[in-house]
């Protein structure tokens, strides 16, 4: 019986090499990829999520653990049943004038881990680029991040442009980032706000099948 705690501990330690090595080993020993994902990688990051909630780990440790999980994911990806073209799609980016990508990186990793295909537009993304991507990719979600109080209003501009382009109804808008609050999200007409990447991941996990069938 493969010991999934080897992968779990690797994630808790934030050791990408260890996670990669044991994920490979589990695959060699013919354990089902979706089980390795669930009992190893997801189980590990869930422990970190819980510890983060109770302030027993800090952001750098979350980042390292997420990176480690991602290293395992990269090994699993070719074998997973959920193929990108059948899964839920999300377009992700940091708004214009804002170069922060740490939170966005976390969102990318965690959202990917539940089977969502992420199209990451990067940082300093203009409203036009966001709208073009929504038109082109037809994602379920548009996820926007802002770290500055001076750039957060760009999120409203993106939403306004989606409305002008007649695309607003076909996509759910999710916003996040340090200065963003639930009130702000409501004010600019976004659909969802999550306080951190783990909350977003939990939401997607709980609603994944519902979203997929839409």
């Amino acid at each position, binding site marked *: 019986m493969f010991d999934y705690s080897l992968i779990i501990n690797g994630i808790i330690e934030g050791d990408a090499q260890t996670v990669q090595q044991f994920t490979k080993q589990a695959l060699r020993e013919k354990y089902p990829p979706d089980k390795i994902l669930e009992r190893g990688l997801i189980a590990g990051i869930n422990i970190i999520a819980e510890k983060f909630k109770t302030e027993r780990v800090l952001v750098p440790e979350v980042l390292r653990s997420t990176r480690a999980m991602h290293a395992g994911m990269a090994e699993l990806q070719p074998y997973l049943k959920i193929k990108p073209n059948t899964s839920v799609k999300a377009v992700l980016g940091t708004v214009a004038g804002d170069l922060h990508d740490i939170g966005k990186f976390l969102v990318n990793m965690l959202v990917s881990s539940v089977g969502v295909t992420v199209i990451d537009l990067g940082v300093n993304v203009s409203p036009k680029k966001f709208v073009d991507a929504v038109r082109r990719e037809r994602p379920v979600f548009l996820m926007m991040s802002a770290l500055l109080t001076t750039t957060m209003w760009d999120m409203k501009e993106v939403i306004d442009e989606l409305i002008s382009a007649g695309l607003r109804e076909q996509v759910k808008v999710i916003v996040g980032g340090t200065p963003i609050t*639930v009130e702000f999200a409501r004010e600019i007409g976004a659909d969802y706000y999550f306080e951190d990447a783990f909350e977003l991941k939990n939401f997607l996990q709980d609603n994944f099948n519902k979203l997929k069938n839409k």
Partner: protein
Amino acid sequence: MLKGGIESNALKFLTDEDIKKIHQASMTVLAEAGVEIHERAALDLCAEKGARVDYDRNRACFNEDLVMQAVETAPSTVTIYGRGDDSRNITLGGTKVYMGTGGTALNVIDFDRKRRKTTVEDIAKTARLINGLDNIHFFVIPCYPNELDTEVVDVNRFYHSINNTTKPIMGGLFTEDGVDRVINMAAEIAGGLDKLVERPFISFISSILSPLKFDDVRTRMLMKISKAGLPVATSCAPLAGATSPVTLAGTLVQLNAEALSGVVLSQLVHPGAPILYSAVPTIMDMQTMSFLFGSVESGIMNAAAAQMAQFYKLPLYSTGGISDSKQPDQQAGYEKVLTALMPALAGANFIHEAAGQLDSGMTISYAQYVIDNDINGQVMRAVRGIEVDEYTLAAEVITKVGPGGNFLAEKQTAKKMRTEFYYPKVSNRTNYAGWEQAGCKDTWTLAEEVARQILENHTPDSIPEEIDKKIREMEPGIK
């Protein structure tokens, strides 16, 4: 958590030249004015050991040789022990910094935010509270049990302190026979007087009055304690402008003379007895004639006193983290930081009054202990300063991350983030929305929550039952 005993000499108000000048001026004061002593046995001892004694005026004058001989025989380090817990020992001397509580308040601001008279229960509760606060390294018995008869005050103050904390204890005394009774009680717990003297977990304060005066009772106490060989501070508290010169330099000269005269008397009684160079320099408010504890001048003088004690290679009893404010507010915050940070950065050994005190030392507050624990933690972080070595210089990490990258997910970040930064318990550090969501609580409220939680859940090792029974038989007045 930052343990006490970290060293610092980052702050120096006095040059080597200044220190010598203060020393010389104090020698002149001790030789010419001398000190007034009202205990005949002490005057006799001074005369016998070569001091110039004027019995008509109760004066003893010490020349430099006699003073420096006492400085020589006094130990350069004094350890006060944790009761049954060596990890809590404090070794005073050099530039090692420890911070703790101070006394003696008559009032407390309780959890209902009303001010009332302190009782014996407040001694037990403050001892228990600080036992659970990492950045309070020792316990000076902080308040007076107003409801008790004077003859049982000393044993009660020490008993309830010992029973509720294993951190090193120091306390003032209110009755003359209290000295013997407290020593007997502590000896019972230690398993004999010799064991108590070898590893003292209690120590005493017996004050010298400014300017330059030893009253009879406190002198007898000091002599008794030194004879027993237990650590003692002489708590010299000149009030600049009133009981010492208005100039800070002048107050330092007088304070130095007073502190050294305490050392002299203890060493005449018992060469080698543990004695602390004791400094409580303060100023008077010239508008209101109020005694001021939390002044910036007090911070400066305490830092300078640390330099003087280091010059004599004597362990220091110092004062900081003090405030004249009446409640845990902004004034309390800035006065405490100012007066704690300066002596700490100068390497002051035993910074007392640095927890829980408000109202110029007359009032304590449960919430304030928790706030001060955070202030002390941050002060100790400053004392630790900047570690510079190949690993901390991090050239390799900077190169690896490169321009435009970030350091959050680097191994070094995860490894060092808990020790490079101090994490306060009761500061609001979230964004505005997060603060609102958590109930818009101020520091006072947050500190009350932490204090309540510690008092409800924390149980220190109390005095073993059998010994406790014996002590209560010896001292039936213990509540």
